[in-house]
């Protein structure tokens, strides 16, 4: 094996082991920043030694042992410093909280305790609501996803120093807020879990929004999010919304290959070539949805969105789509997570299920919605329904209105083209 080969293999090992490693150390030192530093130290040691000695049989254990030794060294140094500064008392900072008692704890900390529990603590801490969403995303991708700062920066199209700063500030915020390094208890779990799911879905959507011209790290975010979601589903198998989110991501990801045309233009769901849908992922998504429903979680927001995606996934052709079921699902979604966008999508579904006149009625019921006033999709939907009713002049006016409201050049062109065609598709 060349040095290059070994480095790539170490890279792979790091991706497989780093989250558990950081989580395991964090359990001991109770500080996420310190845990990450110690884990990095272990990685450096591996990079120095493994090219010569070969990759150990159990790389995770090797890294953990190395990190623990460093932790003990650190504690010993702090303990000595503390003794020297006796008269001044102890400064309050996480690092100096470690004592001789902790050395014993570290030394006695042996192998196979609950790795799952460690990972959960890490996930919940990285996604703590006291942190801003972009900070949670950066921390989660770094500590749990094994991405480097540079990779995160590329994936989110921000400068690397910005990401680095976000993480530094995030760790400081966690320390200053005195966030206890624990899995939240029953009472808090709902809200805290929602924060975790939000982070994972944010990452997924960032990847999903990427186009083929982008840096390949961006669409790879979908894989990162899916992996994190699947891991969480195994760590918390009793939580239906986790399965709901995984189901939603698996099914959305199943369409990635069908979403863009040869010149990178987006293809709408109803126009996609369904032979290009990934049926392995659809199967996985449907299975995850079934798990959510079996746990009584059919009406959670993610489960409902997944069920909507599943309606399309199950239809062999667009004509086979169960639009009435889609309307019912949007009704349910509007009850738990109402939004004008949900209402508009529901109106589209009503049009498909019960005819354009019914659809138009549903859309017009939204006319007063302030939040939809500058939403260009509304006149677009209206135009589409008017055209189906043969009201071509009215349709043209709506498409022109929609075109004037969108900031996206390509979309504007599509809408203007429909206006020119007298509203015809």
């Amino acid at each position, binding site marked *: 094996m060349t040095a290059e080969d070994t*480095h*790539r*293999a170490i890279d792979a090992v790091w991706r497989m082991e780093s989250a558990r490693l950081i989580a395991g150390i964090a359990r001991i030192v109770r500080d996420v920043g310190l845990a990450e530093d110690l884990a990095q130290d272990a990685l450096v040691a591996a990079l120095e030694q493994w090219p010569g000695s070969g990759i150990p049989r159990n790389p995770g254990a090797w890294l953990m042992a190395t990190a623990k030794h460093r932790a003990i060294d650190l504690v010993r140094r702090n303990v000595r410093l503390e003794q020297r500064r006796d008269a001044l008392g102890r400064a309050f900072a996480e690092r100096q909280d470690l004592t001789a008692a902790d050395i014993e704890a570290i030394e006695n900390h042996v192998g196979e305790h609950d790795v799952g529990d460690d990972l959960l603590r890490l996930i919940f801490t990285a996604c703590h609501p006291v942190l801003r969403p972009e900070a949670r995303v950066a921390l989660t991708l770094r500590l749990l996803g094994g991405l*480097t700062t540079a990779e995160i920066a590329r994936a989110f199209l921000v400068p690397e120093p910005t990401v680095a700063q976000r993480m530094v500030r995030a760790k400081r915020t966690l320390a200053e807020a005195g966030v206890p390094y624990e899995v939240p208890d029953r009472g808090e779990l709902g809200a805290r879990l929602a924060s975790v799911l939000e982070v994972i879905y944010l990452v997924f959507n960032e990847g999903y929004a990427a186009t*083929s011209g982008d840096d*390949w790290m961006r*669409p790879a975010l979908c894989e990162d999010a899916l*992996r994190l979601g699947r891991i969480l589903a195994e760590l918390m198998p009793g939580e239906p919304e986790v399965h709901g989110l995984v189901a939603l991501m698996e099914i959305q990801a199943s369409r990635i290959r069908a979403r863009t045309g040869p010149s990178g233009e987006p293809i709408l769901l109803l126009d996609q070539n369904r032979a290009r849908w990934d049926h*392995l992922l659809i199967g996985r998504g449907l299975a995850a949805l079934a798990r959510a429903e079996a746990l009584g979680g059919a009406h959670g927001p993610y489960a409902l969105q997944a069920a909507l995606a599943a309606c399309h996934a199950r239809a062999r052709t667009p004509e086979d789509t169960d639009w009435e079921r889609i309307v019912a699902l949007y009704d349910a979604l509007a009850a738990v997570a109402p939004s004008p966008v949900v209402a508009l999508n529901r109106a589209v579904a009503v049009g498909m299920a019960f005819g354009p006149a019914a659809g138009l009625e549903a859309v017009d019921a939204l006319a007063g919605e302030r939040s939809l006033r500058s939403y260009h999709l509304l006149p677009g939907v209206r135009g589409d329904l008017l055209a189906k009713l043969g009201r071509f002049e009215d349709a043209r006016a709506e498409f022109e209105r929609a075109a004037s409201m969108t900031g996206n050049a390509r979309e504007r062109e599509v809408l203007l083209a429909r206006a020119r065609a007298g509203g015809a598709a």
Partner: protein
Amino acid sequence: MRFMVMVKENDESEAGVLPDAQIFEEMNRFNEEMVKAGVMLAGEGLHPSSKGARIRFDGDTRTVIDGPFAETKELIAGFWLIQVKSREEAIEWVKRAPFGGGVELEIRQVFETEDFGDALSPEVRESETRLRAQVEAQQRQGQ
């Protein structure tokens, strides 16, 4: 990236001999590890080739040949589909599979959307750069 991991047959699997309870358990645990890590997409065992068939194409002719087939070592006993970030990661996972002596596993990358471009070369190049940068940064800090 996706990889197909193929477990090659040996004489026992071809003879239809099921693995003993301990091996089953180790295999289950290994499968679970991959599921828990979020990398397992699919995995199945295959019946021995005696139950299988081959279909040979020659112009318009189709010839069906029933198993068993002779070259045991080239036959497949089972497969996994895994989702990983690199060929090296696939290899590291497979190394952890609970097989004993004389067994061979083969990994092959699955073709995916061209949108991702040639994912191998830039990624490999970046891993190298990243690792070197990390080591340098750490060494500087250590001083």
